């Protein structure tokens, strides 16, 4: 019984972690290109 609960919690944590990583990878920004040397 306890093993099942712990396994479920760990699984949930992994899913949340993966979703956070996915959002981090997908999040966008506004990027300034480096200045060109003349």
């Amino acid at each position, binding site marked *: 019984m306890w093993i099942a609960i712990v396994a479920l919690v760990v699984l949930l944590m992994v899913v949340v972690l993966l979703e956070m990583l996915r959002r981090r*990878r*997908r*999040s966008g*920004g*506004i*990027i*300034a290109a480096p200045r060109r040397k003349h």
Partner: protein
Amino acid sequence: MAVLLLASKLVHLPVVSVDSGEDVAEIKDVIYSPEEGRLLGFTLNKRGFLKGRMSEVLPTELVHAVGEAAVMIDNDACLIDPSAASDDVAKPPANRNVLGNSVVTDGGVRLGVVTDLVLELGRSFAVTGYQVKAEDGSHRFVPLLSQLAVSGDVLMVPAATEEFIREELSGFELAVDKFRAQTGHGAGHPS
């Protein structure tokens, strides 16, 4: 009349092919040249819940149109391999995200923190200025003419910029035109 648009509205917009009518990607990063005052291109995400970053990029030259709901391209071939794109678009430096950067004049006045970039659709995606959040919490629009420097966390602008700051986007285009006329520069031709 040109249409002003905040660049953050483009982030996460679908990229739709005119040929197939399908959304083939999603906008991730908006890349611009502060020197040239124009948009250069986009990095992309794959479409779908568990999908990540897409290796292909989209230079602005290959954009068919930009609307409120989607960025349109002619066909899938417009999403090109980074090796075929300019370095600025292919390898955008992650440490040059301007959101959250301080805007400081060369006279030493802090104008606020960048919250967005103002684009002008119709004139080859010109970048006309920044939306900044001032110390008092209000949002203002700062014209971009030539930027003296962009470091990791500070954008330096000429002191003359202060006079042309506007609180509404509606009067901003006129302020930018006046600013450029006064300093003798057209859009995209900084000193």
